[in-house]
């Protein structure tokens, strides 16, 4: 079930989500990481980062908040240890990169150029822009466009560059359009929603970081709406859909809304082998609906009823 993401072709459309699979090693205890479409690694920055103070998570109804703060070893250690491990284990790797200013994104990109272990760059622009008093890049068309343009120019031309967008904006299609114009080859939708919980015992915010990112099935309707909107406005741009995917039918919703692949994030915390299970269930679901190829299902829900018959029409729809 080949998934096609710009110039990249993957054996299947199920990926991990950045920050929910570290660099694959721990999940490899539960399933072969090479069996996935790709491993998307935790967003990496130039230097080592401590991350935020604990508590870093709070469970919420059908979701969770995290305020990890991009704890990580820095790009050099990442390349030497994590990327090498992933390559040695035959995994295709999407490297998620992050930064506090445009130059940092470019610096990381350059370090990754020419590394055969990298299949794609996912640019996490849900980071505070240190040059703009901490405003998140992804919340501003200009900042988003500047980072994506710079990464696209710096990156090996053969390497697809996907912009990972935040749902915390008035119109996600405007940000997507700006990124597309700046050279993004596709989109990863969505990052977490900003949320918070107050601990009613301490009567203070439950997270060390006060606010945190909301993920899990709770946000799935919002994620699906974002995929739907961006696919509608920019139908030729491939999308990696994510946000609360727990089973094959959840993944199918994203495909039908316009995603060419999906990432499984928070679900891994409850079920470490969720990504391979979702893959098997998605394959069965597509099959049951008579789709000969994944491509035939991508964006299918956008078709007007009268266009649901035809070469790609699943039997279910034709009957």
């Amino acid at each position: 079930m080949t998934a096609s993401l710009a110039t990249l072709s993957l054996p299947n459309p199920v990926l991990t989500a950045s920050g929910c699979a570290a660099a694959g090693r721990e999940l490899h205890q539960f399933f072969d990481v090479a069996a996935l479409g790709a491993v998307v690694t935790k967003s990496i920055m130039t230097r080592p980062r401590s991350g935020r103070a604990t508590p870093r998570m709070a469970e919420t109804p059908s979701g969770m908040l995290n305020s990890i703060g991009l704890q990580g070893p820095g790009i050099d250690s990442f390349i030497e240890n994590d990327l090498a491990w992933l390559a040695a284990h035959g995994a295709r790797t999407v490297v998620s990169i992050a930064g506090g200013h445009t130059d940092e994104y470019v610096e990381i990109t350059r370090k990754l150029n020419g590394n055969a272990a990298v299949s794609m760059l996912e640019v996490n622009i849900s980071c505070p822009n240190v040059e703009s008093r901490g405003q998140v890049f992804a919340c501003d068309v200009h900042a988003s466009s500047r980072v994506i343009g710079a990464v696209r120019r710096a990156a090996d031309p053969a390497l697809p560059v996907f912009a990972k967008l935040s749902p915390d904006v008035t119109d996600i299609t405007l940000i997507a359009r700006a990124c597309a114009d700046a050279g993004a080859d596709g989109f990863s939708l969505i990052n977490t929603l900003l949320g918070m919980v107050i601990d009613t015992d301490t009567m203070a915010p439950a997270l060390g970081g006060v606010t945190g990112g909301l993920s899990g099935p709770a946000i799935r309707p919002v994620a699906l709406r974002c995929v739907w909107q961006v696919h509608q406005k920019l139908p030729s741009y491939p999308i990696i859909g994510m946000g609360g995917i727990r089973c094959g039918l959840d993944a199918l919703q994203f495909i039908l809304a316009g995603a060419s692949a999906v990432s499984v994030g928070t679900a891994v915390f409850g079920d470490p082998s969720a990504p391979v299970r979702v893959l098997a269930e998605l394959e069965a679901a597509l099959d049951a609906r008579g789709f000969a190829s994944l491509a035939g299902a991508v964006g299918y829900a956008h078709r007007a009823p009268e266009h649901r018959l035809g070469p790609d029409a699943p039997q279910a729809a034709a009957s």
Partner: protein
Amino acid sequence: MSNPVQETAEIFAVARVGEYVQFTVVAPGVAAGFLPGHFVAVGVGGENTSMLLRRAFALYGATPSGQFAGTVQFIVAAHGPGTRWLLQRSAGETLDLVGPLGTPFPMPSGPAPAVLVGGGYGTAPLIPLANALLAAGSPVEMIVGASTASRLFGELVAKRTIGAVTVTTDDGSAGVHGRVTDVLPDAIRGVNAEVVYACGPMPMLRAVGDVARTHAIHAQVAVEEAMACGIGVCMTCVLPVRGDDGASRFLRSCVEGPVFDADRVRWADVGSLPDDLVGADAMAWH
């Protein structure tokens, strides 16, 4: 790594023990890899639950062979909705387990006298540890404490296992009126301990570490930090720990712990971000 597996485990028995409930479940894969200090992560809430995350419980024992072959045991204290759900389960139902997880208690290379200190349900992982130490020829002393008598766990089993146990309660409702650390120095001296092992609330672990240090011995303590994944992928369960190089880092208590050398943990900085942590300088605007 601990070679964890995910298993659907039938509940073999549920037994009330003081304020706690002891689960015995059939999980041969978990049992196979068990070492004292390991924990399991248990799915809660059943189908269609709004609770996404597993709950962690220290393993109280595992029986890889014999009559109850393939069972593991853990102790559950009522806390919030997840443990409340667990406490409503009964024998014959199944639980979803991932384990064994974490880095177990390090064992001395040869026989070495040890004091084991358990606070509340923290005694649970110390019982299999005591057995392992005794089997390796190490003399063992055990201190079991709690705020009040009903919160004690394992004092009878400890006594049966080791022959003697010192009990403390904060309110004096059982054993010595006081804290585990009030009796720890005598215990260390009594057995001429080379190491202390502890599991219990964070302030207790810190205090145990302090006592051990004054006796110039190590304390290996099992901490309890809120965990989202339990398997090392999410970075929620960290605490600041000094490394061999003298530099401190946020380490994951689910894989690099839950057992740490008490002297390496920067207790005063748990829950904050000390400036000198590796990578703290990169945290502007985050």
